[in-house]
C-alpha cells in the first residue's frame, strides 16, 4: 500500500532518528533500513532524506564522521544526546497523535461500507 507524501511528511525526521538511534548509518543504509523495516510502506526518496539529515545535523541532533568504504568516502551519522531527547519527544507526540486519529476514526464511525 502506498502512503501519501502528506501523511508521511511530518514523521520523516522521527523515522530517520529512530533508525539511526539503533546504530550509526550512512544515507543509503538509512533508506534501505526504513524500507525493510516498514515492509516497503515507507519508501524515502533521497530528495527527502538528505535535507532532513543535514538539517538534523545542523540542529545538533546528529553527528557525522567519514569512513572509507569500497574505495569511496562514506558519511556516517550518529545520534547525539540532543537527538535522543528529540526522538523521545517525537515518539510521544506520535503516540498521542496516532491514538487521537484512531479514536476519531474509530469512535465517529466515519468508515462506511
Amino acid at each position, binding site marked *: 500500500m502506498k502512503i501519501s507524501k502528506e501523511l508521511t511528511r511530518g514523521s520523516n525526521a522521527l523515522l530517520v532518528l529512530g533508525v539511526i538511534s539503533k546504530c550509526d548509518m550512512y544515507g543509503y543504509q538509512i533508506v534501505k533500513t526504513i524500507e525493510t523495516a516498514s515492509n516497503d510502506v515507507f519508501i524515502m526518496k*533521497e530528495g527527502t532524506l*538528505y535535507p532532513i539529515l543535514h538539517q538534523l545535523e545542523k540542529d545538533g541532533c546528529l553527528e557525522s564522521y567519514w569512513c572509507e568504504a569500497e574505495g569511496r568516502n562514506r558519511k556516517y551519522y550518529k545520534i547525539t544526546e540532543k537527538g535522543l531527547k528529540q526522538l523521545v519527544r517525537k515518539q510521544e507526540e506520535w503516540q498521542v497523535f496516532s491514538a487521537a486519529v484512531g479514536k476519531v476514526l474509530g469512535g465517529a464511525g466515519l468508515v462506511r461500507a
Partner: protein
Amino acid sequence: MSEHNFDSILDFLCGGIMSASESSRVRDELYDHLMCLYERNVSVGMSPDAAGAEAISSLGDKQLLRHQLAQVHPYFPRLTIKKALTMLLVGFIFSSVHINLFDGMQQITQFIGNSLMLTAAFCMSSAGKKPRTAFAVRAVSFICSVLIYLLSPFLDRYASANIVLFGIQFILGFATWFCMLDGLRSMTDEHICDDCKPLRFGLNKLLYTVTTVPSFLVLISSGANEYSSSIPLNEGIGFILIIPFIAFLIASVQLLLRVNTALYKSEHEYKAEDRGGVKLAFFSSAVCLGIVLSMLLGCCYIRQPAETQPYNRNDIEMSEAEYAGIRAALLSYGMSDELVATLPKSEILQYRTLKVNKNSALSADLSQACFSNNYSEGYILNEYLLPIEDEAGHACIRVLRQIRCENYKQAQSGPGTRAACFPDCGKYNYLPAQGSDFILILKESDGIIYSCKPLKTYKNTHLNVTDGVEFSMDSSTDFYYAVTLALEGYSDEVLYHFSHKLVVFKQPLMGTKRSLKEIANSQTIMTVENPLYLYINFYTTETYFPDSED
C-alpha cells in the same frame, strides 16, 4: 560505471550550495549514495548505463532536491549581505558622528565604527569583484588613517604631505561606498528580472544620492573621520550637516532593504562571508592594534619635559610714569590687574600708543561679548583687542589672549590638544597675521612663574591655515600670546583666515553691521571657533575703535 558519469547530476544538485567546502562534502555523500544504487542495479543484472540512469532516476525530483539542499546550507545573501550592510551603515554612523558625552567617547565610537565598516566590507567581499574592491579600498583607507596618525608628529612639518594623505583618505572613503553600491547594482544586473527592475532604479537613485552635494559633505566626514571635519553633533554646524546625513541614512537603509528583498525573491544566490562576529573580532583587534601603535609611537616621539627658565618681567627698562600710563589704558579695556602685572615690560611697551577707553558702554559690550569666553575645551579664554599704532603710525589691533587651563582633563582631551599622543602637551593654533608674535608661555608652579619655551612650533598645520605651538601642560598652566593685526594691507592669505569660518558657517551675517552685543548674543556666532575672525572682518577702524581722549 565510471565516476564522471555522475558529475553533471552532482554539479546540478550541489550547485545551490554556496560554500565550496560544504558543497564538496555533500557531493561526496551523494556520490556514495548513487554508487550504492548503481552497484545494486548492476548486481541484479542491469547494464552499466541502465544502472546509472536508474540510480539517477531514483533520486526523485532533482530540482526539489537541489532547492532543499541549498535551503539547508544557507550561505545565502539575504542573511549575510543583509547583516553586512547593516554593519556597514552602523559603522558609518559610529565613525562619522562624533559626540563627546564623556572622555574618550569619540575614540571609542571611531574604533567601533572602523571595526564594523571593515568587517562589513570584508563579509561582502566574496559577493563579487566590486564589493571585493570596496573592501580593499576600505582597508587601504584604514591603513592610511593609521599612517596619518602615526606620522602626525612628522607630517605636521609638511603641510602638503598632510593634505595629500587627507585627500587620498577622502577619495578612498568615497570610493568604498561607490564600489559597494555599484557592486550591489552589478549583482542584480547579472540576473535582471521583473522583481529587480525597481531595485535597479533604487540603486541608481542611491548612487545618485551618494554623489549629490549634501551626501558629499557626509562622505567627507566618512573619508576623513580622523579629522575635525567629522560631524560634531554637539556643535551648531552638526545640526546643519546632520540633515543630509539622516536623509542619506534613511535612503540607504530603505534601498538596501529592497536589495535584500529583491535578491531573496529572485532566488539568485551570491556568496558572502558568514561568521561576521569572528571577522569583527579580527578587525577590531587590527584597529585596536593600530591605535595602540599610534599612541606608542606618539609617546616615544615627543615626551620631552618643558624647558623652563626663570621668568623676568623686567626684561627692558621702562620709567614708572610710562608704565603707569600704559597700565591705566590696559585696565580701561577690562584687563585684570593681575594680568597686567604678569606681562613683561617688553609686552607692556607694545601698548604705548593705546588710548584710554572712555566708552564704558562699548567696554561693557566687549567684556560681555568676547573678552571672557568660556572656551569649550577646558580652557578659559580671555581675549583683549587693543587698538594701537605700529611704528609707522598705521592703525593696528593687538590681540592679547590669556588662556587658562580650568579643566585639566578636558583640556587634555579636547580637539585642540595632542593629548592622545602627548599626554603632557597641549597644542594651540594661532594666526600667522602680520606682526604675529607668540610671546611667552608662563607656567605657574608653587607660586613661582617660569617662562617656558614652546616644545614645537608649526607652520600651517594640518588643513587649518594657522600656525601652531605645542606646549607643556599641567593643571596650572596659563599662557599668553599676542598678535598684532594691521587693519590695512592684509595679505590674501590672512584675509582667507579671517573669512574662512564665516563663509562656511556664518554667511548670513556677511556685510551686515550689527553691534558687538547683538553678535555676541547670537547663539550661532558663539560657535565660531575664534571670535577674532568675526570682529576683524566686520568692524573697521571707525566702527570698532572706542572713543578716545582725543
